[in-house]
């Protein structure tokens, strides 16, 4: 496979996943907006959504105030935001267009339709009322695209590069969202066991679409921060957990080394990271420092990405 093809597939998938993550994040925002909330936590919530999406700084360069309508527009369509959902869809499609022949016609159709339908939602002035519809549409299309990939793509190296893109993005996104809100996971005597806690924690779970999953996984037992850390970071059941993403990355890198009959640093280092997760528990992470743990994880993953890039995307001899 051409190096450029591998790279374009990887980025197509990352952008698709990113659009999905932003939509899920906005869904939480919409929910908070519907819940009567008079505490100052309200304003914080919007800020942390911007921070989780990694665009708070850019947003504040464009707009002086943080308002619901502006944030929604900014995250969805704003041309000033180069990681809006719109930009993600366009980037996904442009990357895929360069390597059209590496995916099935059905996968291309799904992505291309997504791109063309976007204009239906981006006409005229943005109206907050349409948000649920827009979010539904984004998530539905992402599910359709991923389903089409699973249903029709040949399970060759290209398939692995697509999935590496999806899970590198997911690992990164979940890690960042936990990091933005890590303070609510820290035990604080004044909050423990209060309504505020429960509310904050549920938002946390919802923002990565893991709320229902959490309930199922832990039944009716009391929510506490250790369980949440366990579920979002270490669980192999929660499809949004960091470990789940690392596990998939390890799997697909392993497949590639078998496929190409040649090992590489990316594969070896991801194995080490994976092993670290298997041998960890929530308490150790808390002792180490949640923020420190996440920062180190994000750094380590970006090093493995550089290895991946060098071995597969540059196309020179090694």
């Amino acid at each position, binding site marked *: 496979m*051409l*190096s*450029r093809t591998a790279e374009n597939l990887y980025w197509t998938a990352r952008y698709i996943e990113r659009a999905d993550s932003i939509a899920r994040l906005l869904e939480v925002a919409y929910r908070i907006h519907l819940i009567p909330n008079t505490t100052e936590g309200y304003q914080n919530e919007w800020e942390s959504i911007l921070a989780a999406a990694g665009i708070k700084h850019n947003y504040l360069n464009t707009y002086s105030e943080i308002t619901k309508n502006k944030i929604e527009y900014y995250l969805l369509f704003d041309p000033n935001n180069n990681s809006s959902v719109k930009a993600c869809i366009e980037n996904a499609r442009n990357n895929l267009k360069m390597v*059209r022949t590496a995916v099935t016609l059905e996968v291309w*159709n799904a992505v291309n339709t997504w791109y063309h339908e976007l204009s239906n939602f981006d006409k005229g002035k943005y109206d907050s009322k349409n948000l649920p519809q827009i979010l539904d549409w984004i998530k539905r299309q992402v599910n359709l695209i991923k389903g089409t990939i699973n249903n029709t793509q040949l399970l060759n190296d290209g398939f692995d590069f697509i999935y590496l893109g999806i899970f590198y993005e997911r690992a990164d996104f979940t890690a960042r969202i936990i990091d933005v809100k890590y303070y609510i996971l820290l035990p604080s005597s004044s909050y423990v066991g209060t309504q505020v806690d429960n509310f904050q924690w549920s938002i946390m779970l919802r923002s990565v679409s893991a709320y229902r999953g959490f309930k199922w996984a832990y039944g009716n037992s009391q929510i506490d921060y250790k369980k949440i850390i366990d579920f979002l970071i270490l669980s192999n059941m929660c499809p949004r957990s960091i470990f789940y993403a690392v596990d998939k990355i390890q799997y697909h890198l392993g497949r590639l080394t078998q496929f190409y009959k040649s090992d590489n640093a990316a594969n070896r280092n991801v194995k080490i990271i994976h092993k670290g997760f298997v041998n960890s528990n929530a308490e150790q992470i808390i002792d180490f420092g949640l923020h420190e743990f996440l920062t180190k994880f994000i750094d380590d993953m970006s090093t493995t990405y550089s290895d991946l890039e060098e071995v597969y995307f540059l196309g020179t*001899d090694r």
Partner: protein
Amino acid sequence: MFNEVFNKNKPRVAYKDIVPWANSLPYHTLIKKKNEAENLFKKIGITFSVYNNFDSAERLIPFDMFPRVITKLEWMTIQEGVIQRSLAINAFLRDIYNKCEIIKAKKIPAKLVYANPAYEIKMVGLKVPHNIYSPIIGTDIIRTDSRSFRVLEDNCRTPSGVSYMIENREIMMRMFPELFEKINIEPVENYSSYLLDILKSLAPRKCEGDPKIVILTPGPLNSAYYEHSYLADTMGVELVQGSDLIVEDNITFMRTTQGKQKVDIIYRRIDDDFIDPLSFNETSVIGVPGLFHSYKSGHVNICSAPGSGIADDKAIYTYMPDIIRFYLGEEPKLPSIKTWRCSKAADRKYVLANLENLVVKEVHGSGGYGMLIGNSATKAKINSFKSKIKNNPDNYIAQPILSLSSVPIFKKDTLTPRHVDLRPFTLLGHRKRRLVPGGLTRVALKEGSLVVNSSQGGGVKDTWVLKN
């Protein structure tokens, strides 16, 4: 004007099933089908972009659902004619880059070849694999009466449009299966496997084993990008851009996830000038440095060969009947169009006196740009061409204004005639020739217009060659 479909308001035999079908379609069905077709084109991504267009938006090429039909007998004439021409073109290219016998025999002026900007001096004396310079040739054919097809233009560099030929058919089959059950139509879907077969036969000298073939595209912004990716996909070969290829020790490689991989045959869809910044245009960023040396040393084949473009030059076109006679010893099976060369004093005099009744074309122009259609041009435009011709006579040829044949399009709920041409695609390999029965029918959508180019608002039709 020759109407291909109707003879004094009665449908001709070839259209006996189609005209009643077209007339029976209710207006709302027509609208529905038209939208359906457009959505299909859009979904598949069959779009093109216009050069010199400031917004890079993708456009759909207008598709008309009324098919264009060619009878078996007509097709046989066309087939023989275009194969003959393609063979002559390749013989001509081999000759002018080697022994130049046609020039020594004074059948064609030396100046026309050697001073031609499309003549590539670097190709002189080079041995091209199996002497095939231009394996893929699109011939533009027009019809002016019931008997004859004439060649308007040869395209032997990188002719495009073949993906429309195939996709138009796919869409028609999807929308109107009932027609295909009733009428026996030659399929066109084999084109890609024919092309692969032809290219495979053109391995370079230093190729061992099964040749590795790639298509070289300028990238997704090119107007024919869809076609490049379509062909790569259906042939099962890689679609590469210049940056995907590297040349080391005269061997061409592509960058892959497993390191460098040797490439043997490049079906290039970029212009000569941009192939290799070291040998040609040094500002090219879409080419591959060193590629031409790799080609010269016999490690890789470039199809079509650099310098092939001289054969579809409009000044050479006027000599095509002589070229066919010279190399093949045969009379041309498809006549050319009467052409005046402004380089000749007598011709020039005639052209200048009769501009109102002529089409004037730039010798090296293409895509319908830079031409004059005398009977519909303003006085000012005619005068400007007059001075252009006087200043640079070698740069112009003139032809009579031919009334191209017509086939109707659906216009609202009625059928109205529009002018059409036809581009079949001939494939020549090593001891092999292939031609899919069909071609691209381009149609001028404006009433009375003779310009069918998609860059000038032309559309396309599905083209049916009948089996019997």
